[in-house]
């Protein structure tokens, strides 16, 4: 595979930076699914583990959402605290700015975080709180960055929220610090959230090829390292199209080349590592990557053999958001699993094109329609397994369909070579589980012939 600078992504669809982009489709009342922009902003920024994340609004936005993701930390855990201004009636009437200011002071005084992110929500946006001004004033007074994240839920989808969070990083964080002397400069990983610790597998791989991670944006990140992200040599956008705008802007501002890649599947992983070395313009590194990927791939091939035998020809329906829809297809294909249906509801045109590159003609695209629509595809295509987000897990259980969780709440890491092996194992365990037989066979007394004629 020739490493090429991928620069064909026009900002045409929702989630990328261009302001002229066609708007995200309006969610359909009565049939909408998925989180709000506030949710999206949190997904992006909460993995900055040592920062405090304060939600400005009534309790539900914070109360219902904290501790809901599987992003892990290797150290500090302040970001796992749920901070909220918890506005009540009178705050809404008289304005919540005073409470916001006091909350920021309180958090800074008690927890001494390196930075505080403040999120607006629908209500605080609606009543026109001047969050930016409060944050600015507090930041100057307290001498720590207090960063407003203007991404209230009602502006749009989760994707848009990811992007707005990226904008906040560009505006307030990236470029405000310098690396300590001696920090090896290499790659920024953008849009890798360390779900179930995937970041650690990736880092291990990169390190064994001698590629340094400069900043994690934002899985298992520390605030400081993001401030010097502009010193990296390469940006890799990992599975998050919404942050492509961030990479583009860094390219034009700081001249950092970027590429879009994935770590799902051996092929994609190898490609991503090669791409890094290529863009670093380091011959020696390229050779190291080649040696590493060859070794890893052949070891993986050995390890996978027993599972491949069992998985060959199995059919899966894949329903997940955006970029993951195509990157996971590659991983499944390598295991011999055929994707017979794939969700495209959150995919951009580019994503769909990439899906098309990776699947056969008879794969069904599931544009929208939620659980019932997915189930229909599973049934019609006689799929053996459903691969989707946690929200659909119990839908599958009710229908007794084997299931693998692929989204952010999961507890298994599937990235890299190790991850692919793990995915193969999980698929096998799930398909071979005795529960499917047990659940579908009736109780003995229901099997008996009726004792009398009815």
């Amino acid at each position, binding site marked *: 595979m020739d490493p090429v600078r991928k620069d064909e992504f026009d900002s045409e669809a929702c989630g990328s930076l261009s302001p002229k982009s066609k708007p995200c489709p*309006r*969610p*359909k*009342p*009565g*049939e*909408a*699914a998925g*989180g*709000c*922009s*506030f*949710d999206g902003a949190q997904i992006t920024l909460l993995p900055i583990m040592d920062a405090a994340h*304060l939600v400005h609004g*009534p*309790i*539900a*936005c*914070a*109360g*219902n*959402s*904290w*501790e*809901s993701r599987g992003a892990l930390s290797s150290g500090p855990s302040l970001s*796992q*605290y*749920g*901070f*909220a201004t*918890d*506005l*009540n*009636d009178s705050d*809404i009437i008289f304005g919540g700015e005073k*409470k916001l200011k*006091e*909350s920021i*002071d*309180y958090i800074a005084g008690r927890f001494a975080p390196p930075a505080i992110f403040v999120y607006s929500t*629908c*209500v605080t*946006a*609606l*009543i026109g709180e001047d969050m930016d001004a409060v944050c600015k004033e507090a930041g100057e007074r307290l001498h720590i960055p207090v960063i407003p994240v203007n991404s209230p*839920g*009602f*502006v*749009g989808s989760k994707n848009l929220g990811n992007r707005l969070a990226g904008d906040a990083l560009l505006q307030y964080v990236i470029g405000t610090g310098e690396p300590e002397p001696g920090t090896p400069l290499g790659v920024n990983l953008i849009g890798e959230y360390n779900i179930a610790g995937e970041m650690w597998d990736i880092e291990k791989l990169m390190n064994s090829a001698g590629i340094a991670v400069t900043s994690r944006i934002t899985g298992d990140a520390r605030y400081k390292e993001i401030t010097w992200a502009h010193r990296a040599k390469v940006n890799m956008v990992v599975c998050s199209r919404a942050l492509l705008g961030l990479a583009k802007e860094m390219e034009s501002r700081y001249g950092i080349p970027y590429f879009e890649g994935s770590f799902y599947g051996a092929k994609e992983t190898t490609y991503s590592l090669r791409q890094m070395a290529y863009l670093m313009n380091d011959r020696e590194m390229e050779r190291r990557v080649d040696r590493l990927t060859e070794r890893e791939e052949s070891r993986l091939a050995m390890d996978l053999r027993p599972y491949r035998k069992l998985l060959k020809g199995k059919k899966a329906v894949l329903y997940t958001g955006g970029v993951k829809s195509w990157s996971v297809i590659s991983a499944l294909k390598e295991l011999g699993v055929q994707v017979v249906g794939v969700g495209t509801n959150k995919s951009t045109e580019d994503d769909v094109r990439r899906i098309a590159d990776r699947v056969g003609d008879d794969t069904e695209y599931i544009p929208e329609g939620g*659980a*019932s629509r997915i189930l229909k595809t599973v049934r019609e295509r006689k799929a053996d397994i459903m691969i989707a987000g*946690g*929200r659909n897990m*119990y*839908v599958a259980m*009710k*229908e*007794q369909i084997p299931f693998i969780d692929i989204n952010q*709440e999961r507890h298994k890491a599937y990235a890299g070579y190790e991850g692919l092996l793990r995915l193969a194992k999980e698929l096998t365990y799930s398909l071979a589980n005795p529960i499917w037989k047990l*659940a579908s066979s009736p109780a003995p007394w229901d099997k008996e012939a009726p004792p009398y004629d009815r």
Partner: protein
Amino acid sequence: MTVNRRKKPASVNPIKIGQSLGAVLALQGCYRAMPLIHGSQGCSAFPKALLTRHFREPIAVQTSALQEMDVIFDANRNLEEALNLVLSKHRPDIIGIVGTELTDVAGVDYQSLLKTYKRERNMRGGLAFSVVLPDFRGSLESGFSTTVEAMIDEMIQQVGHRGSRNVNTRQITLLPGSFLTPADVMELKEMISSFGFDVIAVPDISTSLSGHLLTGFSPLTRGGVPLDSMLQSLQSGLTIAVGASMERPARRLHNALGTPYKVFNGAMGLKATDDLLHFLHQISGEPVPLRYCWQRENLLDSMLDAHFQFAGMSVVAALEPDHLYSVSSWLEELGMEQKALIASYETPIVAGMEREVWVGDLDDAEVLGKDADLWISNSHGIAGAERIEAAFLAAGFPVWSELGAYMSVSVGYRGAMEWSNKAGDLLMRREAERREGSVRHR
């Protein structure tokens, strides 16, 4: 005693949960129902995800999917669209429109929209009602009870046209509070029916969120109390409410139909169970079934066995108000020191407790409960419990750190026994770990 608050501007690690989630929970206990949250997407996506995580079941809920411009110009267009779609596609028996903080602050009048909508479409046969549940008031508990009240209101209005009431004195309406698990509701139903009564629980999560493979997947609720039983419940001779927050819906039935009611504030522990069974015995004239006499002995014996474990131990509990009341009376019977009791918000029942109660969050639990041996709260409390080195007992909502938490029983003698053993085990294990730790250090 008075209710205290620690002075701090921000909520740190909240236990309070948006009211609208309580509404969604209440509607899960009705068959073929659809809660429709009138707000932006996130306001339904978060509760859905959280309820799914706790009950490990698919959760029925939809949204009017408001976006910025809709809020400013015409939020009702979205609601109408959502209603059209849900009604034509899924044909629910019950639809509950849940107003959020957003519609509240924006001053959207969807109640009259619903009235016109119902009139114009000539909607009959199902229940459609709305509740206003902004998140800057109350918590899960109030959202739940307010929704049940609205549901009852709507039923009364519907049946009101049909006139005569045929009181069935052998039938009891059970109004279970939001803190009860599906298994709790089941246990209560069994206890009441063991005295010869027919019980209709409104709502009834014991048959919807208890885990069953009955009907496959549906976008509506599966299981729960069917609409005709709900309407049937208006003929009950008595209402039993469990949890002080359920008094208002019970009173509503009383005021409109004259149905007498009895409220049991707590449901946990020896005394609370004694009260319930004694009451049932008195109104039915039936003897207390043998199995409860046995269970009472079992409980007392296990409390005797365990009391060494609880002696000198202290506990911090952070829960919704009714639940806190209930758990506190059980702790009283174990003889544990109740170091700090924290409620998510203030209600008359916690304000009237004999003990000091705080309104606050899990951070308050950490500060006030410093040095406590046992920590009782939802799964959000795990980290705090670890920090103060207390044993962690999961209770309330949400609990994701345990399998089958939604099936654990806390009511009745059986529930008290289960909880006493669980708490005792945790303390025993903690003691053993500490011993090991101190040996290793030497």
